[in-house]
């Protein structure tokens, strides 16, 4: 597959912006329904300080949530790997919890944890916990049999096999789990902010909407996109390093 270069990204970005402008022209939508790109760019520029302030709030919710959720997910996957009992009893519960739409929990979390950071962090954690757990657990279970045979023929203990064979072999799987999480975590945080908050980009969007500052609302949306893209790029970078270290047969 051809790897997109920064130039490719720039071209597709221009196409999107141009398409957006075309829709504005063709539909003749008023600026309080669909503002044109220039207006949004201006709103972004004029409100940069405000956006930055709320950006920092959402970013910290997302980062803390990502960290905690990944940590919890990874620990759960390790626990599941080492304990047959956990596999029997914990796994079905985990799968069952996935039938609950996490969004529906947002009001409850706000009720319990208040309007501050913690309810949003909890949302982010809840939304990424399962993807991280299941991808890492899959990775831990699918260690190549040959690696395990070799370790066993060398008389490694169960714990050493876990931490020196299974875990390193499963790191690429964990990395792809965290990659997924980096996309989901902002969703959790923003939904948390919509349900009840006094800060953050999600809150700013609602506020701008209420005051018919649609251009500001779009600017907040773009700030949110930038947050997700930034996060993804960092995770991608780390993930690729991990994959290089644990490079599979070819390449």
């Amino acid at each position, binding site marked *: 597959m051809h790897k997109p270069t920064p130039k490719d990204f720039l071209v597709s970005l221009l196409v999107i912006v141009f398409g957006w402008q075309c829709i504005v022209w063709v539909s003749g939508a008023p600026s309080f329904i669909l503002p044109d790109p220039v207006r949004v760019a201006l709103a972004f520029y004029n409100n940069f300080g405000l956006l930055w302030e709320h950006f920092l709030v959402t970013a910290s919710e997302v980062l803390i949530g990502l960290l905690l959720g990944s940590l919890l997910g990874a620990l759960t996957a390790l626990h599941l790997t080492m304990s047959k009992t956990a596999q029997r009893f914990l796994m079905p519960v985990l799968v069952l919890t996935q039938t609950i739409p996490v969004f529906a929990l947002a009001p409850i979390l706000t009720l319990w944890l208040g309007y501050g950071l913690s309810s949003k962090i909890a949302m982010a954690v809840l939304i990424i916990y399962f993807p991280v757990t299941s991808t890492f657990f899959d990775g831990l279970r699918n260690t190549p049999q040959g690696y395990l045979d070799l370790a066993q023929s060398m008389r*490694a203990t169960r714990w050493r096999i876990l931490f020196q064979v299974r875990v390193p072999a499963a790191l690429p799987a964990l990395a792809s789990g965290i990659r997924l999480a980096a996309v989901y975590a902002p969703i959790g945080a923003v939904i948390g902010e919509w349900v009840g908050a006094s800060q953050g980009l999600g809150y700013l969007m609602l506020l701008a909407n209420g005051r018919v500052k649609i251009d500001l609302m779009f600017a907040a949306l773009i700030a949110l996109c930038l947050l997700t893209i930034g996060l993804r790029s960092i995770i991608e970078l780390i993930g690729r390093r991990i994959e290089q270290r644990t490079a599979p047969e070819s390449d």
Partner: protein
Amino acid sequence: MASKPETDPLRFHLKGTFRHGRQVLFQDLSLTLEAGQWTCLLGPSGVGKSTLLKLLAGLPSGGEFSGDIGASDAQPIGSRIAYMAQSDLLYPWLTVYGNVVLGQNLRGEIEDGERANELIRQVGLQAHRDKRPHQLSGGMRQRAALARTLMEDTPLVLLDEPFSALDTRTRREMQELAFRLLQDKTVLLVTHDAAEALRLAQTLLVMTESGLEVQDIDAGEPLRQITDDRIVASQSRLLIRLNQADGADA
């Protein structure tokens, strides 16, 4: 030499019956690995060669074995084997050096770096000591796996078609290197390659459904020249025997 034997080489044996569910894979089989010699095991696929190897290695074999596996010094064999397979099984996240000292690390022992470096030198990888496996060619990877196997310094070495994925020339070099470096060990080599077996075996066994049979090689000691007339003759006899065994399977 890297592997100074602390004791004399040992003889190993495996006698018994192996069942796979209800199906008997082999019955009252008796395998003896002569001390300090290369025993090569040939036979059609599915006859149980790899199972034999797994049993000796103490690995899960997916069936039930009843019988006796032991060594001539009457000590348990469990901890005294090293195992090398067709795929090199180098851990991709470790360097060549890290892979060579893997056994010691997995047992929580202190790394013997000096010995590891010496073995890496003997297999000719000193310039690649700190590279990761994916940076090496197939032959180099198999040499790293050989160094890792030698590092274990066990009296019994089990080789499961370790050279079969290599090209002809690299394979010949690997055979020579392995034979030279594993001199004082008791070695079991499972292979599909009749020429390889004829080149390396001190005892050559063919495994069929009815058990093991010894094939004589009257052409001197290994490493034999496979172009030698006598080896060519042995090889055609052996191939005829293997074809019969295959036919019996069908």
